[in-house]
């Protein structure tokens, strides 16, 4: 197994909006030296509470935000280094993103076919090959469990789960090796979440993908991921390399998160043992 993605000591800060002085240059540290790596075929969970910088990390990893410090290597190449056009294009196709908020992640004026078609177009430009877009769109839709007839629909004519599937299809269309799922299932209801996670697991086996799975929900991490990192205030506070040993974590923040999930289990009337079993073994 080779290392597909490696991030080293990433730092990002944003200028504060509420400066104390006129023309102040105060900055807010959002990521303070994050390092992580992703092996081929692996699913790495990134968990942390709201505002801990998960989405920012996602943007850095997907090449949208240049970090102030630190390097990211995708398959041995520096993501933010200097590249020829062709190299840069190829790099772009290593990693694809699925966002949390499916309502804003597709252009409301595009039909499903054009939404997926945009990715195909980008792929055509990168590889120079011709793609039969119509057929490929149908294939991709089938792959994510949607009927072909959805291709002519607009996003607002789809349910949340269906639209999120379209987003996954669009992410798959560029034939990536890594998919970054930024809270991709958090805004779906429980049964749809399970369906989409099953879909993700199946796709991963089928296409030998690697996932970066960002979430604030431990249950879904244990369902899908091989390894987990816990983020708090822009730092990695705990790393669990074996998902079955997740109960043995030591850092107070991660414990707190764990207990929060178990606590909810208790409230619903099931015993703590049972709740944790359900959550961790699944």
């Amino acid at each position: 197994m080779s290392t597909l993605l490696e991030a080293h000591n990433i730092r990002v800060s944003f200028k504060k909006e509420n400066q104390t002085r006129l023309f102040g240059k105060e900055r807010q540290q959002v990521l303070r030296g994050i390092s992580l790596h992703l092996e081929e075929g692996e699913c790495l969970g990134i968990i942390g509470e709201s505002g801990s910088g998960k989405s920012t990390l996602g943007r850095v990893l997907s090449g949208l935000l240049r970090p102030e410090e630190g390097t990211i290597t995708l398959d041995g190449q520096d993501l933010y280094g200097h590249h020829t056009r062709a190299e840069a294009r190829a790099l772009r196709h290593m990693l694809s993103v699925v966002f949390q908020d499916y309502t804003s992640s597709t252009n409301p004026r595009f039909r499903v076919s054009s939404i997926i078609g945009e990715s195909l177009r980008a792929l055509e430009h990168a590889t120079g090959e011709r793609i039969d877009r119509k057929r490929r769109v149908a294939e991709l839709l089938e792959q994510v469990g949607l009927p072909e007839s959805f291709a002519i629909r607009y996003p607002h004519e789809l349910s949340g789960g269906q639209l999120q599937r379209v987003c996954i299809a669009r992410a798959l269309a560029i034939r990536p090796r890594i998919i970054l799922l930024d809270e991709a299932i958090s805004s779906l209801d429980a049964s749809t979440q399970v369906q989409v996670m099953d879909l993700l697991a199946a796709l991963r086996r089928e296409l030998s993908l690697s996932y970066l799975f960002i979430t604030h929900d431990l249950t879904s991490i244990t369902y899908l991921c091989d390894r987990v990192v816990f983020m708090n205030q822009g730092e990695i506070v705990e790393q669990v390399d074996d998902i079955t040993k997740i109960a043995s974590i030591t850092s107070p923040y991660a414990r707190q998160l764990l207990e929060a999930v178990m606590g909810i289990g208790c409230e619903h009337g099931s015993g703590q043992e049972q709740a944790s079993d359900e959550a961790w073994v699944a």
Partner: protein
Amino acid sequence: MLQQLFRSPMALLCMGIIFITALLGIFAPWVAPNDPYANDILNKFAGPSWQYPLGTDQLGRCVFSRMLFGIRPTLFLSLLTMLGTIGIGVVMGITAGYFRGTVDEIIMRVVDVMLSFPSQIIILAVVALLGVDIRNVVLASIFIKWAWYARMIRTATIKYTSMNFVLFSRSIGSGNFFILTRHMLPCIAAELAVLASLDTGWAILNISTLSFLGLGVQAPTPEWGAMLNEAKNVMVSNPEQMIVPGLAVVVLVGACNMLGDCLRDALDPKAVRQ
């Protein structure tokens, strides 16, 4: 989208008015019953008749023919003004909003300066500087209005630049040109359409106003504002002279503004099925 527009009776009515007006203007030489410059001093202030459908003015010229020929400067010059302003405004606004940074700062400071002058005063100043000519009026209108557009479009662009679908586009490496033309332009088209039709109304008023003040289209060229100006001199003795050009301006400006509203409704895809 367009179907939606064509289903609204108000939009149809407004487009009908503007379209017919434009056609009448284009084919004025064939439609007009009389030469708009021909005097018939014995027949001045005549009432409507077969020869002069809307009567005659103080020099005995056919009011109807003058109205028809007046469409050209009124409607076409205001469309020209609108296109000019929108063109510059969109380019500046999108550039500033999408690329941000230094470019944004420079453009927005220029815009701030432009917006700190009252627009009518600037137009008067430019016309005073360059001389009384309708071309200068158009130039001055574009010059003063683009900043206003640039600001609105920049705001809209910023709103859409942080949307996930633009982020996704960038992350898979679609070019800036593709993103700007396929995502940004259609998204701001709704805002743009509203602005554009409201602005055409503004431009019509503006050109008419300046002609009324004697700074735009010069006599004896027929123009609605200039006709109002001439009619104003005989307001007490022959008030009916003001009705025709006055009403025409009101209807045309109203149609443009209404069309703006209808366009906005039609271009909002979410509103379609509600």
